[in-house]
């Protein structure tokens, strides 16, 4: 049984840790016409040391939800485990799968008692909400919190269908933030990843273009950020579920990039007037 540690935020004496915990990362997720892409590097750094060069920062929760983790390695691993357990329990108790928004809310409320403590968790939930049949919706309409009781059921069911199904990207962190969006990048390498993504991301990208954009963004971030590096993990979530691409070593990508640049420089030299 996973025991959630009791929150000791009320304790006045805090013990100073004699060792550094693993931190530092680049993870990103974005939505496009073909679903959700989640990408992350694989380096876990503890202080100045690379504690592990091959960590899994993207974990599947169920067939249609993966979560990218950033922050302290142990915290992310354990909280993902707790989340998987709670989602499974919900599914067994209520005979239906919890929506991505519900999952994010559950996670956010579970992390709330630890606000102000050392727990450092920043998760991006990337998933696909299945289309619920209207009968199911009418049963559960009473429990949805963002509907006012005075609105008619027909309008509610239409809006719920639109907002409940399809690709979803929600960012949850241990500070208490819970944000839904189309593009998120988390970690020490995120500014570099945002630069690349903001430049080229469009809704109409094809699957191959989206994957190569995600890989490029992680590659540029690992190039500039010391705490990100090694390999890149890529997950693609669609209505059929998540699919994982084979882990790629970014060292190869770097050499290919250098070769390309080498060729470009040669062309420039040829055009110089004599």
């Amino acid at each position: 049984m996973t025991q959630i540690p009791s929150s000791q935020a009320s304790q006045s004496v805090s013990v100073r840790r004699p060792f550094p915990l693993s931190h530092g990362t680049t993870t990103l997720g974005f939505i496009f016409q073909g679903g959700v892409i989640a990408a992350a590097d694989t380096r876990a750094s503890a202080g100045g040391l690379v504690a592990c060069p091959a960590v899994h920062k993207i974990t599947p929760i169920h067939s249609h939800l993966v979560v990218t983790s950033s922050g302290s390695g142990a915290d992310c691993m354990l909280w993902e485990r707790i989340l998987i357990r709670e989602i499974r329990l919900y599914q067994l108790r209520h005979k239906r799968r919890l929506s991505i928004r519900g999952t994010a809310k559950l996670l956010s409320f579970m992390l709330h008692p630890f606000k102000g403590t050392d727990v450092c968790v920043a998760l991006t939930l990337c998933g696909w909400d299945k289309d619920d049949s209207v009968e199911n919706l009418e049963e559960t309409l009473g429990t949805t919190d963002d509907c006012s009781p005075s609105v008619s059921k027909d309008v509610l069911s239409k809006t719920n269908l639109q907002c409940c199904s399809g690709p979803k990207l929600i960012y949850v962190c241990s500070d208490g933030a819970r944000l839904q969006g189309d593009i998120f990048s988390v970690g020490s390498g995120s500014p570099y990843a945002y630069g690349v993504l903001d430049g080229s991301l469009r809704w109409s990208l094809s699957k191959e273009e989206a994957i190569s954009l995600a890989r490029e963004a992680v590659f540029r971030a690992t190039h500039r950020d010391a705490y990100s590096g090694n390999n890149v993990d890529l997950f693609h979530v669609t209505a059929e579920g998540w699919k994982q691409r084979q882990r790629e070593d970014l060292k190869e990508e770097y050499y290919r990039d250098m070769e390309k640049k080498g060729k470009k420089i040669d062309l420039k030299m040829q055009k110089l007037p004599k």
Partner: protein
Amino acid sequence: MLSAQNFGESGKMKEYHYTGPVEHRFSPYAFNGGTVLAVAGEDFAIVASDTRLSEGYSIHSRDSPKCYKLTDTTVIGCSGFHGDCLTLTKIIDARLKMYKHSNNKTMTSGAIAAMLSTILYSRRFFPYYVYNIIGGLDEQGKGAVYSFDPVGSYQRDTYKAGGSASAMLQPLLDNQIGFKNMEGVEHVPLSKDKAVQLVKDVFISAAERDVYTGDALRICIITKEGIQEQNIPLRKD
């Protein structure tokens, strides 16, 4: 010690700054040194540790090995704060017995690893200052190594070094066992004898350069026949 900081720009020595009394808070932790290493092969696993127990500039004991036998197929190596190592191994032993009594079977290496992760995380806000590495055989009989950080994050590896000399040993293992950063080498699978020899060589190097590692080396070789122990002397200085 006289360093460049004590001299100002003109070359004259700076005034001696009196910073005032410094209050030292009681720290519940101590660092007792020691290095642990584990390697997983096709049908064997090796867990090795040095046997020096030190604190500050003193050596408490030259015969305090850091490998603890958990089951017939699993050995754990714990280095860091010796008090926490002892308590942690006692807790793991108790939980192993409880599992055996309720489920009528011995815990597998993977299950022990998952359990240790939760035990460590239950003390997230006052951690066990222990670097753990579990070595053993999995259900298929293949070698398995699980490495942990002090708060419970863990991962299955092929090889891992932990403890005071880990930063020195890990790159060497990456090169010799993982064939990293080498071009045009044939990836030969590691045999048991070669692995044992490599472990001995690697610890001899660690004892040369790390003050907290030395005295003797205890190697536990885990195969389906059982656990075999070897003791090799190391530098005592």
